[in-house]
């Protein structure tokens, strides 16, 4: 994180791409262990097809790991970097 001037697009890819890979693995593991038909989110039976649950699961895993990636990127920046004038407007 020495380079403060990381392009925004690069940051986006750095967050979205690894989290995408992690989401594939997490989805595979999770749904190998649990059948969507056996899950009752918030105690309710849902009408969503298995394909739908897999998809929602994958997108949720992606979202969660992407959020974690944002956190990593944010905390990897030191305070002095954050206060640099050129990074302030980013």
């Amino acid at each position, binding site marked *: 994180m020495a380079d403060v001037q990381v392009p925004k*697009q690069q940051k986006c890819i750095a967050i979205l791409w690894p989290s995408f890979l992690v989401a594939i693995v997490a989805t595979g593991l999770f749904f*190998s262990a649990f059948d969507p038909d056996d899950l009752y989110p918030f105690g309710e039976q849902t009408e969503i*097809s*298995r*394909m*739908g649950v897999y998809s929602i699961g994958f997108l949720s895993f992606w979202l969660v790991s992407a959020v974690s990636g944002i956190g990593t990127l944010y905390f990897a920046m030191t305070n002095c970097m954050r206060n640099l004038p050129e990074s302030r407007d980013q």
Partner: protein
Amino acid sequence: MTNPDTTGPATGSRSDEQVAESLYAKAEKIYPRQVHGLFARLRVLGVLGLLGIYYILPWLRWDGQQALLLDLPARKFHIFFVTLWPQDFFYLAVLLIIAGLTLFFVTALAGRVWCGYACPQTVWTEAFLWIERKVEGDRMKQQKLDALPLNARKFRIKATKHFLWIAFSAWTGFTFVGYFTPIIELGQRLLTFHLGSWETFWVIFYGFATYGNAGFMREQVCKYMCPYARFQSAMFDKDTLIVSYIPVRGEPRGSRKRSDDPVEKGLGDCIDCTLCVQVCPTGIDIRDGLQYECIACSACIDACDDVMDKMGYEKGLIKYTTEHAMKGGKTHIIRPRIIIYAVFLMAIFVAFAWSFSQRISLGLDVIRDRNTLYRETGDGLIENVYILKVLNMDSSGHEYDLRVSGIPGLSLHKDLAVIRVDSGGVLELPVRLRADEADLDARSNDVVFELVATDDDALVAREDARFLGPQ
């Protein structure tokens, strides 16, 4: 760089259009020049073979059903004569480990052949480049077209290219979903506009990824996104096959006439035509030495060999070689690294094959009725209720005998006279066990259900359960 004729990435005048704003980093657009030769033919063979497999495989039939169907909605993977269930997850994981180790082994031995010939990124990029060349013409024409301001002709050509790219990507996305849901029915739903919402989503998602990766990102995927490109050097040693320029032979480089004697002019064999740079799909100069951007596609070998032929020089100024061979030493194919990878690979493969051959294609789950712990029957016996889930993972249907043991005088009662499950079927079977209270040792007693196929004694499944009583 002395040759002003070439407009390669390193030399050409840059117009704003040429500096394509790519998704990852600002990078100059690379126009790989078409190349002919032995390795180009090998790659075309690889591309056609792999694309053929990808697009044809889901249409193949086996025993009246799709031969390769990773049926996620039904939670079953049909792979030709094998049907895998979620219980078989272990095998899939081991298969992935074997694939990974194979990649390590091949990398140590032959370098990045995966990247150059077999990686989907390379394969689809080649297909997209082929479409681009058919529509826009060769490298020079593409560069000229991109330098032009937008006019009717440019718009027509670009629109044609993108239409073909998108059509190809959409077909790719459709095929991808066809691996997970029966492709013939999927095609029928597509033609009648009855595609499910998630199916539509995944066709578009995968199609878009193909369009973006093979049409625009291209070499940047290898340079910035590929994990393998980052760690492949760990498998490399001085005996690994690499694509390399031979500087002792080529330097000092310089242009010359065909009739010139290089020795007289004090030149090496490199005529500095920059063709090796122009054909490079990642836009590097192989003459700068081994670089992690190099995907070992050997386009530069083909290009350079051609030039050497024309100049009447010996081929192989750029060639497949090893660090040891370049230093005049001997290349050792058999070496500790190779032996270790090979032994690991063989051991895991043998273990996998053995374990797979021992796989019992019968599954039994016992679920206790959760509502009542036990009840007393009219004739004073204690009764427990269970639901048995019988999974027939075999390729043919079977009838099964059910036995139960663990408590003296335990009796089994079920509504079905015959337990018959078709291939790939699941049977939910409610059963009641009855025992005399006097025979129970404790409040909770262990019982064992045993299911055996009537026509094959080897098809056995056992499952423990608990029998609850008052004391």
